[in-house]
Every structure is written in C-alpha cells, then in structure tokens.
C-alpha cells in the first residue's frame, strides 16, 4: 500500500523535471540543427537530397566518433587535446602494417592479416589514451597540459614512422593474405557507408555504458562530486584513467576509418579535429566542468557542426566567411543555453514580485 503510493504516486510529480532539463539542454542543440537544415534547404535544392544527406552524415560520423570518446573525458571534468594526433598516428600504423614491415634482426617482411592490423591500431590508440590517463590520474598533471604534450608527441611519432611520406596501396595482396582492409572499412552495407554504421554502434554501445553500467554511474558521479564518489568507494582514479583510454580507442577507430576512406595513411591525418570534437560535445549540452552530458546530445552536436560546414560549402560561401560563421555558431549555440537559463531565473524572480505582499511591514513590526 505505502509501497505503491511511494512508487506510483511520485512519478507524476518528480518525473517531469528530469526529462525537462535533459530535453531543454539537448533541445537547444536540436533547435540549432533544425535551423541550420532549414536555412540550407532553402538556399540549395541539393542539400536535402538523400545522397547528400548520406555524404554529410558520413563526414559527421568521423567527428561524432571522436566526440563520443571526448564526451567521456569531459564528463570526468577533463579534456583531451591529443585525439587529432592519435588519429594520425593510428592511421599511419595501419598503413605501415598493411604495406608490410621489416621484422627486426631479420630480412623478413611481415604482412599481418587485416584483423591484426585493426586490432593493433586500436590498441595503439588505447595505449596513447592510457598514457594520458596515467599522467592525469597518477601524476595529477592538468589534463590540458598532459594531452597537449601528447598532441606533439603522437604527431611527431606518426611523422617519424612515415618519414613524412604517405602510405597508399592499402588494398593488400591476396598472396600475402592481407586483403580486405578497404573492402571492409570502405564498404557500404545496405547503401550506408561503413563509418556511419560505426558511429551508430559506438553511440549505442557508449550510451549503454553511460546509462546502464556501474562504470557509467561512477563516471557521472566523479564528474558531479568527486569527493562524494570517493567516499562511496568509487575507484575515482581508475575511472579517470579509463575515460582517456576510451577516448584514445575512439581516436584509433577514426584513424582506421579515415585511412580507409582516403584511401591513404597520412601522418597529418586528423589535425585539429580535437577542436571539432570538443565543440560537438559542448554544443550537445555537456558541461566542461564535468558530470553533465549525454551521447545523444553529443551526436546532435556533431551533426550541427558537420551539417553547417558542409552546407556552407554547398551554397558556396567563401572559405573565409566559413570560418567566421563556424566560430559564431559555436558561440551562439552554447550562448543560447546560458541566456535561456538566465531568462528562466529572471522570470522566476518576476513571478515572485507580482505576488502581492500578504502582510505589510507594519503588521509584522507590530507583531514584534
């Protein structure tokens, strides 16, 4: 009896605020996206054509995957500037393995099969993340600095591996049994490019992790109130380390997709993509202070940026204006959020003011 009342009756009252807040924050990103689509749909008839939507979505996918990894880091209250370089590094590693590498101390050249290549690349990406994570969680180096250093190191290593060259000829060779890299990663199951599938899978997987697993709860907790989490026995340091690993893993995946997409492994791959990823996460309603943010919002954020940039190209806005507009949209998309919150606060105060005073000061004074 009390059971039911305790469980059923509140739903009506308390459920609302939960969704509302979430919706509002993401909602704003969604509004931005709708506006962008609407504007460009008017300005160009091609914008909404299915082929174009698919193409733009494929462009979004790369950034979205990076952004998902970045989201975890940001939920933890950190930041990862090294993802762009990690993309370059892992891509180069893949290219390096596919074209075959001399085994040390022997004259042999090894041609690992594609699945090995993929696993190794992802592992390298995760390793870079692990190093970031340890620097941040153990040595207590500010995430910004640790990952800034890694930004240079990873890019440098990528350049060293290729000596500045670009690896092509990634299709492999039946004799060597290392074919399939492109046929898989650049394929289009059901007419949908592979990267989009990856984005979908990652999105589902990571929102599962965030919403359904203990780790996800711990992550939000550490982001929201690290001390409370620690007192509740949450392995705060482990959580902090793993989010960077996740980010590195995502970067690795993007590195592979990018390489297959070109198809060529260039050490410059992914430059500056960290900024787009961060922008996507924040536009998607996450707080850089940590504890707030969702995969759904992040994906929307990625679409906002991608659809904007491509749209500007399609309607033929000059390269220079593209930059101005992109920057302005980032600021506005996040600004609306803040302004809105202030307005609600204002209106609350207004409401309080219209309430006519119940008792006059005198009355109380007399009472005293």
């Amino acid at each position, binding site marked *: 009896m009390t059971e039911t009342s305790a469980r059923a009756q509140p739903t009506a009252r308390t459920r609302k605020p939960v969704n509302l807040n979430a919706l509002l924050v993401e909602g704003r990103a969604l509004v931005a996206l709708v506006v962008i689509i609407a504007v460009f749909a008017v300005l160009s008839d091609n914008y909404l054509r299915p082929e174009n939507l698919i193409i733009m979505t494929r462009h979004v996918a790369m950034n979205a995957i990076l952004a998902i990894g970045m989201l975890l880091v940001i939920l933890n209250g950190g930041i990862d500037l090294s993802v762009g370089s990690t993309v370059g590094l892992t891509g180069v590693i893949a290219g390096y393995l596919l074209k075959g590498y001399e085994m040390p101390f022997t004259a042999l050249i090894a041609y690992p099969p594609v699945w090995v290549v993929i696993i190794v690349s992802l592992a390298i990406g995760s390793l870079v993340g692990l190093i970031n994570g340890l620097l941040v969680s153990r040595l207590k180096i500010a995430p910004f600095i640790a990952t800034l250093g890694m930004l240079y190191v990873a890019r440098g290593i990528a350049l060293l591996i290729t000596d500045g060259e670009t690896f092509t000829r990634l299709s492999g060779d039946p004799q060597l049994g290392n074919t399939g890299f492109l046929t898989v990663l650049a394929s289009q199951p059901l007419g949908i490019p592979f990267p989009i599938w990856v984005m979908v899978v990652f999105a589902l997987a990571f929102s599962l992790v965030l919403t359904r697993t203990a780790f996800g709860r711990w992550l939000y907790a550490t982001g*929201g109130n690290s001390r409370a989490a620690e*007192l509740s026995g949450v392995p705060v340091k482990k959580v902090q380390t793993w989010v960077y690993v996740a980010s590195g893993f995502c970067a690795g995946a993007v590195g592979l997709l990018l390489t297959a997409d070109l198809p060529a492994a260039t050490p410059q791959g992914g430059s500056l993509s960290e900024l787009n990823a961060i922008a996507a996460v924040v536009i998607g309603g996450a707080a850089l202070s940590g504890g707030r943010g969702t995969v759904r919002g992040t994906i929307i954020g990625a679409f906002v940026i991608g659809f904007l940039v491509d749209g500007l190209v399609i309607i033929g806005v000059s390269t220079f204006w593209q930059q101005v507009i992109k920057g302005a949209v980032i600021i506005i998309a996040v600004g609306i959020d803040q302004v809105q919150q202030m307005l609600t606060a204002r209106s609350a105060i207004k409401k309080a*003011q219209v309430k006519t*005073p119940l008792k006059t000061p005198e009355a109380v004074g007399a009472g005293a």
Partner: protein
Amino acid sequence: MNQGDVVLRAVDVSKTYGVTRALKGVNFEVRAGKVTVLFGENGAGKSTLMKILSGVEQPSGGHLVLHGRPVEIRTTNDAVDLGIAIIHQELNLAPNLSVRDNVFIGRELLTRAGTVDRRCEDEITAELMARLEEDIHPSTPVGDLRLGQQQLVEIARALAADARILIMDEPTSALSHSEVQVLFKVVADLTTHGVAIVYISHHLEEAIEIADHAVVFRDGELVAQRDAEGLDMDWVVRSMVGRAAEYDFRDEQREHGDVALSIQDVRVVDTSAGGRLAVDGVSIDVRAGEVVCLYGLMGAGRTELMEALSGRDQVASGRVLLHGVDLKGRSIGERIERGIGLVPEDRQRDGLVQLMSVGANLSLASLLGSIKRLLVSKKAETASIEREIEDVKVKTAGPGAPITSLSGGNQQKVVIGKMLLTDPTVLLLDEPTRGIDVGAKGEIFSLLFREARRGLAVLYVTSEVGEALTASHRIVVMAKGKVVAELDPRTTTRQEIMSASEGTVEASGSTTSSPDSSPIGATS
C-alpha cells in the same frame, strides 16, 4: 551476538591534522543493539573518530578492535565489507545523479548481463523511501531535492548497506521534528535486530531521547560517559562545556540606537531549485548596538536571506534599508563601502582564499583603503593587518603565514576581521560558530558584543539553541522562509524556540510565553 556486546572498540586512538590534534588517545566502545550517542562541542573530535571507524581517515595512533579481533580499516569499502556504514555530517551526494543512483553508488546491483539492475534498485530505493515515509521518486535528481530530503537520501544510502554497525553523524541537522521522529522509529527497529548505532547530534534533547549509552567528547578527549538512566540535559551540558569559558551575554546593555538595518517584506527566489521562494516576505529591524540571532533549521532560508542582504542574491521583492537608504541595485562592493558586510556560512567555500596568506585574506575587502598613487601601500596595509590581528586575537605565525595553517576558529576570526576592517555599521554572520571549537566560540561572541557596544548592529544565523539563548539580545525564528517568531532570550525557552522553528502554528509569532524555570528546557 547478544544485545550489549561490544562489537567495535577504538583503543587509545589519536588523530592529528597538521598541528590540530583532533583526537588525543580516545578509548571508545560500540555495543550491539544499542544506540551510543556522542556529545561534544564543535571540533571536539566526534566526526574525526567516526571517520576513523569508517575507514575515511587513518588514526595517527592507537588501533581498532572488531568482534575482539584487531582490524585495519583502510578504505570505505573495507568498512562496508566489515559491516560498518556511515552517514557523514556533510552531505556526500552527486547532485547530478538520481536518488537511486546515489543510494547505490559504489555498490551497484548488477543483472546477469552485468548491467546495473535499475528495476531492482528502484524497488529497494522506493521501499527505503517508504520506510522513511518520504515520498520521493527514485529517479528524481538529487539536485532538485530540499536539503532535508537530501539528508534522508544520505540516510537511505546507509540503510541500503544493511550494516551491523551504523554511524550517524548529525543525520538530523536538516530534518524537521516529524522527520526526526520517523528516523527514530527506524533506529529503534534496527536496534531490535541487533544493529549497533552510533549517533551524533547537536540537538541535545533528541539525542538524549534515543540514547542507550552517552559519551561526551571535549577537545579530542573522551571526558565522560554513562548509561541512559539518569541521563539528562544538565549532565550533558556540564560535561560538554566543562571548564570552557561559559558565556552569557543576555543581560548586556539593552537600550539600542536607532534602526540600522531594516528588512521589509523581503522575498528571495532560489533560482537553482525551480523558482522556489527560499525567503517569503521576511521583515526584521536591527538597531545599532543590537545583536539579533536568526534561528532556524537548515533549509529555513536563512542563508538565502543573508546572501540577499549582502547583495549576492537578488531581492525579488521588498526593501532593504541601511540607515534609511534603500540598497536596491547596489553591488556587494558598494554595500560593503556603505557599511554592511556578510561573514558567510561556509568558511572554506565563501570565506577564505586558501592560496593566500593570512594578511592578504584580512585586507582583501578593505584594500582600496590603503591605495596610495594607484599602488597598494605596503605600509598602510601591513599596519591595518597587524592591528586587526591583535584586535580579533588571531593566533598566527604572522601575516605571511598561509591561511590554511590556522585552526578553524582562527580562520573564522580572520573572516570576521576582514569584514571589521571595512568598518561596517551592520555585520551579518551566517553560522559564525559552525565547526569551531569551544574557546574560539566564546572569543568570537565576546568580540561581536564588544563591537556591538561600539555601536555595530549584528544579525547572525545559528542552528544551536544554546547560542540563541545565551548570545543575543533578540531571537528571530525562521521556518520555511518565513519569520515565525520573535523571542526575548530572557523570557523564552529552548522548547519554545525549537517548536517554533518547526514552523508549527502554535508557536508562530508568539513572543509572550511562560518563562521556564530551567534555562535549559527538558523534552516533553
């Protein structure tokens, strides 16, 4: 095991923070099925001992014995595994998470698939809420909850661990009287099942009410203990306050100057909690030389009122007059210039700049006073700093010492000194004695009354009835954002103050009440 067996024993435990010796070789026992109550002034070392028992802190000396066997409790997880759960004095919740998430955080229930079993957790949470007779949905974000409700979530979390030893460090500080009664029912139920309870509260009556065994701490030592029979307020207060300077300023100079601060029907909105009215039509006058005490439970809206007066929060409606001048639209800085400043509730969060020295903290608010030719004149600044350090008796190595090297009480004196340096005519203090120890407390009040004698108008918030009674010229009781009573400390009683603070009808507004024989009322 049988009722009354000693399950957990702290042997000669001591704890040192920097120079602060929080515990000085304490021997302490916890008994199965009994409620052991800890009394002690702020800073006596109660929480520190509890933190040691629950693995949050490690003792600097001594050791623990669990069920007769020596144990080391290194982490909170160790404690939980050993069946020890704690409700911390300060809330430890993640506001961005739901009630359910907070209850089970770190102890998730998993499905076979390895995911969190939300349904099961929801059910248990709902049951706990039902048990605490609170109607809160498990998926409500904790951030949206009232302080009291948040504290209930904290309690629910401890219950969910169903531990054999349950430590409650001031679990009721934000609860209303009725909520407290519910908690006591739960406690009674637990003890009958042999759970050992350690209970700490500054609400002496309620503590005495449920105590099976009482222990009194003072300055990090266990100074007295006895069983429930014959346990009464007198004994507690005597053993608590002990040799510490008793202060009673009730009969200080009664005739005050004219109205310095006039609060007229002020409303303050708590924008964080969905436009709730945190302060709802409050009117108070404070006269020059008068010390007014603002009593209430947590969540009564006192802090909001204080912060609105200081200029941090916006006053939604009503007027605030300083010597007849409306402060509307004035920034915090301008208000300080005009002579009204706030000593905030949370010293660490709002009072101090931890990275700065004692001197820099002291002069922060009055810096513009010592500007010569655009630059801060070291001479003028140091002079005023040294003067103030003498004046408020800060015990420090010198102006250059880091603020964090001071004891809580001295830190508080620095915050107060900072405001006094701006020579205010009205001083607002929110919980000025929270978490500071016996000696410093007395010094702070004598300081306030000395300034009052010099014509300063003082309005301070407290949650301790004792203070309200002994250290004020007038007691204003707030509940649920409204002023429910204005009382004269010479004529009123603890009981009256407390029942008024519940916001219950019969007490509201009453100023004339039968004077109580004993200054310290007994529970009905």
